[in-house]
């Protein structure tokens, strides 16, 4: 039998919640999820330098959360610059 040991780690409440929920939905033990995730993480770090990896999780500050919330609650209209930009999809010469 593979030797096993125990670890303890401080994680965010949201990470803990994600782990709990994924375990409940998938039926996979939390220890297995953590171990697999760690192997994937280390493997990815070994194959690509830090600068080539785009972090997938963007944690916003309270100020950042307010900016996102405001943008979603009241989306800004398409600015003239955005309209001009998207027009380049139709014709590359449209600027």
């Amino acid at each position: 039998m593979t030797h096993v040991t125990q670890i303890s780690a401080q994680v965010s409440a949201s990470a803990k919640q994600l782990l709990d929920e994924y375990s409940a939905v998938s039926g996979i033990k939390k220890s297995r999820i953590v171990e697999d995730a760690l192997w994937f993480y280390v493997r990815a770090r070994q194959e690509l330098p830090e600068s080539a990896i785009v972090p997938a999780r963007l944690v916003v500050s309270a100020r950042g959360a307010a900016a996102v919330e405001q943008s979603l609650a009241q989306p800004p209209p398409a600015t003239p610059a955005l309209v001009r930009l998207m027009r380049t999809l139709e014709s590359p010469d449209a600027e």
Partner: protein
Amino acid sequence: MAEPAIRRLLAGDDASAFRCGDPEYDLFLQRYAGQNQDRLFVGTTYAALDGPRVVGYVTVAVGQIDHGDIPGQARGRLPRYPLPVLRLARLAVDETFQGRGLGRRLAAYAFAVALQVQVAAGCIGVVVDALPGREGFYADLGFVEIELTSGQSPIRPQPVAMFLPLAPVEAALP
């Protein structure tokens, strides 16, 4: 002269002569964009091609905006669950094609991809990592700065994360 066509990066595309003025962006395209996309599936690069030669690229990756552990009141009405976004992580144009609107076309292409992701898998908006000095360009498009506590781009000098919901992008479609 025909404008470069934009499509997903393929293994045979020639990026060996790509020079954008920032060696780090050149190296990413030449060495890591392909394996990032085809082996690790952690990001996709769309290339602008002049014949077989890559003359511009934009790299996008799916991501999520998370409120972390902000207390409920400070979080406002931001949902508890993570919000899926498309992150525009890198955009670069070869020096021979700079000043011809190719960077704008690549950005528009990435925004159109975000609209496809919205339908296919869910996506509330685009996050760009705006290089210092380029924030004004994205602000003109409607992006607002979002302060992050983690998940900042590893690129140096450190870009500014900016967010735009997809509603105005959809409204701006030709």
